[in-house]
């Protein structure tokens, strides 16, 4: 096929519809105008129809009393709170699952990818079976499966599995002692902050020292000492200001203590395992994309194989891994909305579900929920793009 190009030998006469470039622009402008007109007329009809039927199109309900309960709330919430507060409860629950899901899925993905590349036949085949099994079964089925498995395998509250009488496991979830903070508890918090800052400083120092002298520093042990030792020391010096509130079985359920609900567990399990299978393939592709010569060069220098993987192969593989990894993170966050099927109170369940139904504000709730997912995804992909820039091959 020959492509007609408006190259240098095309006549530069004025505006003519026979000019393919001008014609292209005209068509595009027409298409855009038609699209805008379509959206505009459709939406103005929707607004007119809703006004005629007396359906409000505003957010007046935001400050009204919600009147319903939610079991898992990261911020304080009760039936007397407003619909607006219910929105935040749902949003935080979504972010919680998204954040933990991303961490778990990434860990599973990297581990399984390395296992699948292992020279050990059994290990690599097991990893293959995992990947092919979990990425080829619809996520919804997996979530319902995990939820049913989690519930069916757990005992009733009165027959709870107990660990030292402090941690209980039953159909209502995992109940752990709750921390009770007394007057000087802030000291321990600051000690932890100091530990984190010092750890970062030490690892930077260690890296510089290694770059300059080739000497390695015991970063792991020093970090552990700083992160655990400082808070424990502060805790003892401040007179043990943090106590524990033990869960007690009272009536139907445990009271006191902190509860991890089975819905959260099933959702995290399902999302991490499903997304982990995809991530492991991405990571495997990234590792395979690093030339064999890199391995050989590293081993010729006498670097051990796990250090080669960590310091030589993975950093180069990240260039290939990060862009598709971003997609998986976005998928995980969006897939978390399947929570509605297993009773986890995420944004969709709380806000686009109960709030929508009680207020009847379908368009507002759906639009806002959609907007929130869009915002989360855009922030996440921006962060990942920044990270991608850092690991990308710098060309001069």
């Amino acid at each position, binding site marked *: 096929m020959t492509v007609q190009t408006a190259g240098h030998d095309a006549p530069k006469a004025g505006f003519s519809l026979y000019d393919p470039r001008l014609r292209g622009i005209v068509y595009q402008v027409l298409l855009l105008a*038609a699209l805008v007109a379509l959206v505009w007329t459709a939406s103005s009809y929707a607004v007119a129809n809703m006004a005629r039927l007396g359906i409000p199109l505003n957010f007046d309900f935001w400050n009204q009393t919600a009147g*319903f309960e939610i079991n898992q709330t990261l911020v304080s919430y009760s039936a007397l709170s407003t619909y607006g507060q219910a929105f935040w409860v749902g949003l935080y629950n979504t972010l919680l699952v998204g954040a933990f899901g991303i961490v778990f899925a990434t860990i599973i993905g990297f581990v399984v990818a390395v296992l699948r590349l292992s020279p050990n036949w059994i290990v690599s085949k097991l990893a293959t079976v995992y990947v092919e099994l979990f990425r080829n079964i619809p996520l919804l089925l997996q979530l319902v499966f995990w939820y049913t498995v989690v519930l069916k395998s*757990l005992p009733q509250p009165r027959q709870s599995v107990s660990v030292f009488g402090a941690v209980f496991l039953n159909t209502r979830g995992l109940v752990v002692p709750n921390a009770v903070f007394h007057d000087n508890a802030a000291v321990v918090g600051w000690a932890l902050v100091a530990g984190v800052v010092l750890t970062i400083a030490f690892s930077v120092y260690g890296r510089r020292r290694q770059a300059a002298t080739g000497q390695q520093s015991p970063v792991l042990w020093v970090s552990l000492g700083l992160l655990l030792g400082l808070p424990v020391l502060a805790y003892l010096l401040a007179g043990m200001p943090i106590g524990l509130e033990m869960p007690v079985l009272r*009536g*139907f359920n445990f009271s006191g203590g902190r509860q991890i609900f089975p819905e959260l567990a099933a959702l995290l399990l399902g999302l991490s395992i499903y997304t982990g299978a995809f991530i492991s393939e991405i990571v495997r592709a990234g590792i395979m994309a690093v030339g064999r010569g890199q391995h050989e060069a590293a081993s010729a220098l006498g670097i051990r194989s796990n250090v080669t993987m960590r310091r030589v192969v993975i950093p180069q593989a990240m260039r290939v891994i990060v862009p598709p990894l971003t997609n998986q993170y976005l998928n995980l966050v969006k897939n978390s909305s399947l929570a509605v099927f297993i*009773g986890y109170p995420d944004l969709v369940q709380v806000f686009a579900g109960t709030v929508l139904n*009680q207020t009847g504000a379908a368009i507002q709730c759906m639009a806002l929920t959609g907007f929130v997912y869009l915002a989360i995804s855009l922030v996440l992909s921006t962060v990942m793009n920044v990270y991608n820039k850092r690991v990308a091959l710098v060309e001069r």
Partner: protein
Amino acid sequence: MSGPGHVPHHARNHRIGEEMKLRSKALAGLLATCALGLMASAAAAGTLDTVKGKGQLTCGANTGLGGFGIPDDKGQWTGLDVDVCRAMAAAVLGDAKKVKFVGLDAKNRFTALQSGEVDVLSRNTTATSSRASTLGIIFGPVTYYDGQGFLVKKKLNVSSAKDLNGASICVQQGTTTELNLADYFRSNNMKYESVAFQSEDETLKAFESGRCDAFTTDASGLYAERLRLANPDENIVLPEIISKEPLAPSVRQGDDQWYDVMTYTVYAMLDAEELGVTSKNVDDMKKSDNPNIRRLLGVEGDQGKGFGLTNDWAYNIIKQVGNYGEVFDRNVGEGSPLKIKRGVNALWNKGGIQYGMPIR
């Protein structure tokens, strides 16, 4: 269309419509007009004429509530709510079989009615003021007086809802159920854990697996759901009814003629029971001397004409679907597996509150 009060309303809407059509034609032509034609048609024409034109009534029904709306193993829809739609089809089209059922869930049901996807919504829906005022719909007569209750396992040894302090309760979200639940526990100064699911199936499954101590929904639903458990006899419905749930069919606001058809279809079924007219004796009853029966069955007077129906509209309902008592017994009462007592749903002269406005 209907009363004079609606004329400016429609006129204004019509004008807006014309204006937009002109503009869109100038701008985008065919494509845009197609799309808005779809959107505008829903509410503009009278639903009665639309249904007659289609030769079929589209009815929004429940897909999984035994006794109220559920397709059986042969794909035949059964239930009290379903029969209300059949009765409307019998009244309007003379044939109770000319109904297309659209399965709706608690979430999309109002949208389906608002958008014109269904002509009538008959899906165990509670008539409430906020639904009437903000959703653009209007409720017909109450076809079943219901109320929210609790289902618990017998082995918990709970005999009253007042004993449920601290319990975990499985609830289907997307209804007023969550609100009633919270209100009840709040007003009795009790605590509970709410575990909300989108679908009835998941809610029941979670209850059965022991995630919750109690399962709450409308009492009618509890009787139906209890039968779906592996061991129905190990579970009981607690005596407390914590809310008023008058279940009623609904149509779009602004179409009074269609609203009347729905309303008097239900009344005709109630009146037929009161007058002793059943699907079996309706042909004999045509020869009755009772003027009320003669008017109901269209032997005397022009009762159907004013509604835009034929005069044998009520005869068709009773002959093909039955009176209210027959429909109740067949679907939820003694003649059904649910065996729900008539209770408040008995006729007003038999100790209940069901009262059909007179047909005369």
